[in-house]
């Protein structure tokens, strides 16, 4: 019943619009005008509206920044993250300046150069090679700076020295994460996807001696100030390990290992003091992976060496979990 009503209302709206338009047309026929001709009055009103909307638009951008700026991520909690934030600030400043200048010019020209009356004539200016050269060279110079800055930042991040890094495997699957610590021998045991079964959720090869002291956990703990190398695997589809507070993101691809190296610089408790008691570092999935993609997370805790040791000691090794028969 409601459906029929909705359709009837829609038809009535359309019929009303049609009649309104017909009235408008008849009126202009009476006044002997073309209802669709763009008049000087139109030029004036539209250009003024454009200027007003333009200014309001630019003001709204500023308003949005001031209203929502505090919602953006806090400053990076990793060493390389600070370099990314600096590069971001540099590039953002650049594009914001260009944004405001070009838009101001645009809205100013729209206002100033409207066709005011029949005597208003445009200026026939087909080209000027010198100008073209200027605004080809200027962006080139600016972009060269942006490129060089960007590439050097990228190079430092991707070529980080990982000789001292604590290695942690991060394992992604629909729809949760697990972490595997290499244990005393500092070596992660080999794996085979065909071994994934029941409690051996990561498919670790327990015949490999280096697997025995590995620890699989449901949270990641790391030590503040110590370099970490995360190695990513996936069980089923592409996931993406996103640690926004550390400026870390890397796809987890079934069939290959990817990695990301970084050094956390702030402990979780430091961040809680700064951002509020509810703050947690979090690892989220950032590549569409299925129905529960929106809720695939793992806690990530940065702490002191002592706290970390205590936590790790409390975790069971794989030989305890998988090989001890109950």
């Amino acid at each position: 019943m409601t459906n029929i009503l909705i359709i009837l209302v829609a038809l009535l709206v359309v019929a009303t619009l049609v009649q309104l338009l017909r009235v408008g047309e008849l009126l202009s026929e009476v006044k002997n005008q073309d209802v669709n001709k763009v008049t000087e009055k139109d030029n004036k009103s539209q250009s003024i509206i454009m200027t007003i909307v333009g200014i309001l638009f630019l003001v709204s951008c500023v308003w949005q920044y001031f209203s929502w700026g505090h919602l953006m991520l806090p400053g990076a909690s990793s060493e390389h993250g600070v370099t990314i934030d600096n590069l971001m600030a540099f590039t953002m400043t650049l594009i914001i300046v260009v944004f405001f200048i070009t838009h101001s010019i645009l809205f100013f020209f729209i206002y100033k150069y409207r066709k005011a009356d029949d005597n208003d004539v445009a200026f026939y200016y087909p080209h000027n090679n010198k100008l073209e050269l200027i605004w080809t060279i200027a962006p080139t110079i600016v972009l060269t700076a942006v490129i060089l800055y960007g590439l050097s930042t990228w190079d430092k991040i991707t070529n980080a020295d990982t000789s001292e890094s604590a290695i942690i495997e991060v394992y992604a699957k629909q729809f949760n994460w697990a972490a595997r610590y290499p244990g005393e021998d500092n070596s992660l045991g080999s794996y085979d996807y065909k071994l994934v079964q029941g409690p051996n959720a990561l498919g670790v090869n327990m015949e490999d001696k280096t697997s025995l002291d590995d620890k699989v956990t449901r949270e990641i703990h790391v030590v503040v100030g110590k370099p970490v190398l995360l190695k990513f695997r996936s069980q089923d589809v592409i996931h993406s390990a996103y640690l926004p507070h550390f400026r870390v993101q890397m796809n987890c691809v079934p069939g290959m290992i990817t990695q990301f190296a970084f050094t956390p610089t702030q402990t979780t408790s430091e961040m809680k003091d700064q951002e509020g008691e509810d703050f947690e570092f979090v690892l989220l999935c950032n590549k569409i992976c299925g129905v529960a993609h929106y809720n695939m997370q793992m806690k990530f805790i940065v702490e002191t060496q002592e706290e970390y040791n205590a936590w790790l000691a409390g975790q069971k090794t794989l030989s305890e979990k998988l090989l001890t028969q109950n």
Partner: protein
Amino acid sequence: MSDHHKETFISKYVFCLDHKMIAKQFLITGMIMGIIGMLMSILFRLQLSNPGESFAVLEWFLGDKWAPGGVLDPNMYLSLVTMHGTILVFWVLTAGLTGTFANFLIPLQIGARDMASGFINMLSYWFFFAATIVMLISLFVETGPASAGWTIYPPLSALPEAIPGSGLGQDLWLVGMALFIVSSLLGGLNYIVTILNLRTKGLSMSKLPLTIWAILITAILGVLSFPVLLSAALLLIFDRSFGTSFYLSDIVIGGEALHHTGGSPILFEHLFWFLGHPEVYIILLPALGIVSEVMSVNTRKPIFGYKAMVGAMLVIAFLSFIVWGHHMFITGMDPFLGSVFTFTTLLIAIPSAVKVFNYLTTLWKGSIRFTTPMLFTIGFVSTFITGGLTGLILGDSALDINVHDTYFVVGHFHIVMGLSAIYGMFAGVYHWFPKMYGRMMNKKLGYIHFWVTFISAYGVFFPMHFLGLAGLPRRYYTNSEFPMFDGLSDINEIITFFAILGGLVQLLFVFNFFYSIFKGTKATENPWEANTLEWTTPIERIHGNWPGEIPSVHRWPYDYSKPGAEKDFIPQTEPLKEGETEH
């Protein structure tokens, strides 16, 4: 050359060989699909701003299965997001934009009777129609339409066990896309050959309207890049339906270890984005061409820097083939490769900047007429600047680390495609409507359409940059599972509000379009007082376009307000006067 064959309804409207009718077929199909795609976005935006809440309209459209109790099902959410992207990128902004304007304008603006092959042209539309039917059918299958994102990365898109939409829905999607690609290629062949061979006497390449240059370059891009998507899709079809391991390896799903080994999902990404990136320029270039035309006509000035505009488009097209990796910075690719792609991607900013400065200079000291197409042209310039600038952030690999796959990306690509390119399309429709249908579209409705769209669209997509910088990932059914995103719900509500407002006003455009076809004020032959050849054809529109001889061309298209001329425009068919120099 006038009607020499007896026309039936079928030969006039259905299996028509006339480029003007084929153009309208593309336009109407594109508009219908556009409404469907836009509706999908409203449905999923409701869920995003009011997670878990019940909406009668959701149940009305999606039924009890996909919106039980009026709450959107998470699988259907991903399907809506996927189909929205697919429909808008391919059906509206590629076929709807290029298919309409290339078909309509090429013969008219170059002075030809029709395309080089009317038959191939007709085939191009009917393959498109077939693709449309297949895609629409896929919306109704039991396990749901494709839902792995419009980018359909395997293994998610290859395994129905990973997500239901990757079953029959994905099969139909792939078939639909294969048909679409064939349609695109058939069209592209015609556009290139017609432009190169069928230009009227005097129309050298340096006198071509910029719209035609843009379409030519777009068609070349399409011929070279769409087939690679076809090869990617073919290998995916084999992995899905035959059990090969091109993209699949080491997978345990649904508790079962699959037999695939040796495949690489990254291979798919490379092949996909090899098309995917040129695709966005296939979308943008025709809009750039249209806007150049409309701006010149409505500022009564030549477009500034014709040669530079052509050169910039050529550079953009060339570069577009070597930047695809910027969609893959965090896949774990070799960092050196990442550097190369950053370099090439940021280079594209240079020709884009040149074009923006040239547009601004065209406006300078112009005599601007605020017709509806001109308003959309101004909107284009604004959104092209905004969207293009955020591209500098995304193209920089180090910065992409933290914004990849967040709403920052969603904001960027919507502003350049969903705003810029669509504004170009609207400008084209309003501008060439009199030539298509012999009538004018209503001015007041056009103004309302523009202003509400312009304000709403920025209202939807500008705030997304902030969501992205707050770390909010895209393609999330709800943001309520992470306390860190709790503060973003206000922004999401504002976005949905503007999305609904902007969506509704498009209905006004549709109404204006169809009303004006039948009841619009009759147009004159050259209502905008423009120079290009299409405005010399009679208002009644005939096969073969000109009743007698095809006019010859003597000058470039941009002699507006030329000093020493009687009127403020000189059509291309006017010979140069004694002592008159070219521009």
